[in-house]
């Protein structure tokens, strides 16, 4: 088990490095001059002088060759210095620290809500496949899933903030639960369908497996049977986790925009569009760590549920 974990952690570090290098190269290769964009340049506008642009490039090391810049950044990042934003010159870590709590809270709440609703729905569906409830919930979830998140968000906003006046129009984490209920609900509703579906399928398969049959033959009660099935379904959740967690950190630009939530999603979007490379790399690092850690945790959970995975790894 220890060897399995060490190997996985090393692999994760390699993954992170790969992501950072890929983001760096991709964004550097994309056309668009960070100096021009950071100084607010637009065609036809009175622009920053060419000396100012040169000075900007010198300050941020943009005049150096790509590999050297990458090496410098990685070296500094290893010491937890993520550099300074091109746009306002402030440390990247500070800006992330300002936006991350709001995003984490909203998305964490959304994930809890989604899991709390979707897993029971999935289990119910698996235990009563083809029933009216199963089919109705399936249709409903599909419908929710097909709605663009910003449209869903606007609908909720119109209902709860404008018609009923229960929640503020703009998300405000300082108001507590009421301030973030709507963005969290929006994200949760969008995430319901995939979670419920994976649960339903995985539990369904576990229920029809020989071990479940033998359990039933032993007179196992439905609750125990379901718990065992859920445990057996653990590997299926690994992928889901890896798919849902990036959003936890990187946020959702669209939902954050609709509710005016100052989170990392908007920060990332603004940074990408203005080619604010240090900011994008910093956010990539943070979300990458979250993805890697959650995947590791899910894999470990899967390994605990089914030790053969570890054995297979060792051979």
């Amino acid at each position, binding site marked *: 088990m220890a060897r399995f974990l060490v190997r996985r952690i090393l692999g994760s570090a390699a993954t992170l490095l790969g992501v950072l290098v890929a983001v760096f190269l991709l964004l550097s290769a*994309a056309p668009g001059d960070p100096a021009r964009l950071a100084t607010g340049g637009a065609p036809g506008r009175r622009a920053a002088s060419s000396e100012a642009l040169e000075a900007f490039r010198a300050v941020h090391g943009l005049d150096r060759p790509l590999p050297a810049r990458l090496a410098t950044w990685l070296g500094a990042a290893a010491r937890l210095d993520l550099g300074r934003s091109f746009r306002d010159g402030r440390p990247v870590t500070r800006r992330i620290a300002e936006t991350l709590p709001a995003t984490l809270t909203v998305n964490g709440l959304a994930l809890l809500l989604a899991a709390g609703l979707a897993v029971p729905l999935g289990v119910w569906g698996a235990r009563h496949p083809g029933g009216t409830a199963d089919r109705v919930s399936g249709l409903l979830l599909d419908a929710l899933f097909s709605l663009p998140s910003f449209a869903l968000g606007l609908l909720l906003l119109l209902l709860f903030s404008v018609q009923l006046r229960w929640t503020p129009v703009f998300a405000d984490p300082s108001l507590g639960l009421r301030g973030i209920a709507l963005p969290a609900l929006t994200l949760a509703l969008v995430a319901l369908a995939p979670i419920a579906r994976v649960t339903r399928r995985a539990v369904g398969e576990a229920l029809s497996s020989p071990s479940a049959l033998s359990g039933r033959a032993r007179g196992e009660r439905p609750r125990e049977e379901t718990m065992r099935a859920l445990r057996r379904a653990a590997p299926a959740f690994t992928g889901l986790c890896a798919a849902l967690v990036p959003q936890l950190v990187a946020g959702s630009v669209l939902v954050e925009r609709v509710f005016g939530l100052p989170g990392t999603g908007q920060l990332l979007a603004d940074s990408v569009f203005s080619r604010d490379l240090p900011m994008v790399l910093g956010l*990539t690092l943070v979300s990458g760590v979250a993805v890697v850690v959650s995947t590791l945790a899910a894999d470990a959970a899967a390994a605990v549920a089914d030790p053969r995975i570890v054995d297979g790894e060792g051979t």
Partner: protein
Amino acid sequence: MKRLRSVRVRLLVLGLFPLVALLAPLLARERTTDPSVLARLVTPVPFDPNATDLDARFRPPDAEHLLGTDDLGRDVLSRLVHGARVSVGVGLAAAALAFFAGTLLGSAAGAFGPRADRAVLFATGVVQAFPALVLVAAGAALAPPSPFTAAILIALTGWPEVARLVRAEALRLSASPHVEAARAAGASRRRVLFVHVFPGAISPALATVPYILGGAVLLEASLSFLGLGAPPPPPPGDEPWPMPARA
């Protein structure tokens, strides 16, 4: 039996879209001068999707424009029918690509031992930890936005989900007694992969296909919004960062 019927309904709906999309140029086009019933039957949507009429903007649905007109006075139904071509095309292509790459790599990872597994895990890890926004925006900046670019970008973000599901299943299967038995009986690696692992591993991934397809259509709708970025000074009278028209 009930389950079969619902599957059939879904297949019918799924099949209808590509059909409509395929026949769009015939179904929806500027009506010729022939007002006969036959002409109406052959061309049920008698409007060119791009024909504008600024004096007929935002018309509510009526007998002439079955779904009304949009902000430029274009027939909404005709645009939907033609738009389906692009959306469905992109969605199908992206889903097919993602599914193909995902299942292949996923089952290879599960069946070909630790080295292949590690390589695939690394690749899925990189893609999944890669902020989709960066990929889409940088992709749109590098290659001009087109349905082809969109399909590639969506497939690029979609395949790891399939691969991970398939891999997990394949790992379980290749450790299962019947695969072990097959190996013991001297089955080749390829045989183990294609006969014993692949068919079983596909089924959980199949469940994700509608989601990739749906996600692809959604992402395709938001691509214009996400991929184009924001002009710092908004055009006069416009808000910065407008939402896509009707995504």
